[in-house]
């Protein structure tokens, strides 16, 4: 079904949703998906947000369980899983593609129940990208900025949002909003416009030929990694901004009255990521840098029927302090192919 509401009403609609809502919110010049509360600054026009939607499903840190240790005995209490429905309002096509990538990891057997419980209770409301940024290149990786795949999709046309529901979950949510029905025409027009705009972007079409499991060794052994990785500082900015980076660490914190076991994001860019008592198999930044991009462009598709774990959101382009990013890697290693 197609509905319609004025853009000016967006805040009222978000406020009116009876469940918890996570939406892009602007604070001190940075946007992230936060639990919306009255008085917050909704940033529905930002593409992409500084921090990704990943945070909602896979937060930077979360408690997994709690131990009480007394003498030789250990008592274990599990952390409660998410058990309340919530809504994400304003997801972009790349965010949604990223969640599909995360699903491949966390919902694969054995299922990660901490993640799965959040996925289960979520209703996704997406926004079509009418003003993509120069750093966007999502279509290369299977996302469609014109029609993001969610429960509900909003299409910004003029001063209105056109609303299309794609699932029963979505239909049920939109019913709460009491909207006027609308024609589909403007939606189709917008889709065409977005398609045209996307074509003008600098990275609209990247040559991904050769980024697959078959060329694994060839890409791995490329001499170009040395130059590509030279400036890399080994900070984790790209991995933390990335909507699909899901490496994590499990750590214990002794609070003095028990031990909390929590999970937090980790980064393959860190020198201690693979460090063992016997040493590390990736001693230099070159290997760590290579690991990150090989994983996104070669290893992951080799395991997941060609699905890349880059979604073309462009966050690493914006966040890397030294301006290294995946497009440079694709161009450098892709060219090699054609020569």
């Amino acid at each position, binding site marked *: 079904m197609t509905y319609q509401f004025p853009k000016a009403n967006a805040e009222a609609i978000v406020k009116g949703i009876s469940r918890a809502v996570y939406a892009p919110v602007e604070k001190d010049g940075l946007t992230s998906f936060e639990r919306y509360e009255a008085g917050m600054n909704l940033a529905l026009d930002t593409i992409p947000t500084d921090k990704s939607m990943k945070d909602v499903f896979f937060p930077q840190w979360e408690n997994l369980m709690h131990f009480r240790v007394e003498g030789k005995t250990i008592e274990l209490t599990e952390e409660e899983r998410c058990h309340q429905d919530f809504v994400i309002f304003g997801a972009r096509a790349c965010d949604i593609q990223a969640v599909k990538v995360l699903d491949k990891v966390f919902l694969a057997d054995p299922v990660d129940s901490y993640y799965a419980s959040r996925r289960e209770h979520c209703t996704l409301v997406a926004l079509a990208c009418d003003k993509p940024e120069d750093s966007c290149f999502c279509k290369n990786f299977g996302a469609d900025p014109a029609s993001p795949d969610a429960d509900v999709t909003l299409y910004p046309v003029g001063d209105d949002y056109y609303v299309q529901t794609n699932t029963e979950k979505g239909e049920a949510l939109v019913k709460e909003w009491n909207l006027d029905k609308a024609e589909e025409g403007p939606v189709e027009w917008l889709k065409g416009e977005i398609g045209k705009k996307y074509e003008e972007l600098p990275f609209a079409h990247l040559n991904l030929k050769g980024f697959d499991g078959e060329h694994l060794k060839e890409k791995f052994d490329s001499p170009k990694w040395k130059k590509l990785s030279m400036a890399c500082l080994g900070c984790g900015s790209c991995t933390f901004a990335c909507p699909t980076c899901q490496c994590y660490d499990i750590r214990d*914190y002794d*609070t*003095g*009255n028990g031990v*909390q076991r929590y999970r937090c994001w980790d980064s393959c860019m860190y020198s201690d990521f693979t460090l063992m008592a016997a040493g590390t198999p990736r001693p230099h930044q070159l290997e760590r840098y290579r690991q990150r991009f090989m994983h996104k462009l070669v290893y992951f598709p080799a395991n997941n029927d060609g699905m890349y774990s880059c979604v073309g959101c462009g966050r690493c382009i914006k966040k890397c302090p030294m301006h290294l990013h995946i497009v440079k890697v694709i161009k450098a290693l892709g060219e090699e192919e054609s020569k």
Partner: protein
Amino acid sequence: MQMVNETGWKPKIVAFCCNWCSYAGADLAGSGRLSYPADIKIIRVPCSCRVNPLFILRAFERGADGVILCGCHPGDCHYTSGNYYARRRMTMLFSMLDYLGIERGRTRVEWVSAAEGAKFSATMNDFAKTITELGENRKLGDLRCKK
């Protein structure tokens, strides 16, 4: 003796004492039957300069309401110059804590010699009084360590 404020709350205080002067000073205070608050936990360190800024922060993390560092008087360091370095370091650290808006009274450095049992007792009493007045440390603790 115990320091208690109106609500019955008692401060937790950590005192780092240098082995050669202040720890002996504390001993002297004890054997001279001079009282100081029972809630002060003394940690013996080989020299005041052994105290890394992290020690102080970690004491706060774990629920301390005040941290005091006691060492030999400048010029009397067992290792010649340790307390001079400690003095600079602590000045910098305390200034930074102040800059971050943490109450100034929560940290202190005092020079207490092995012969100054009375000074030790007086210093601790005064410090405990200051901390009791400041109340619970809410600005620089780790929530996970609170019950």
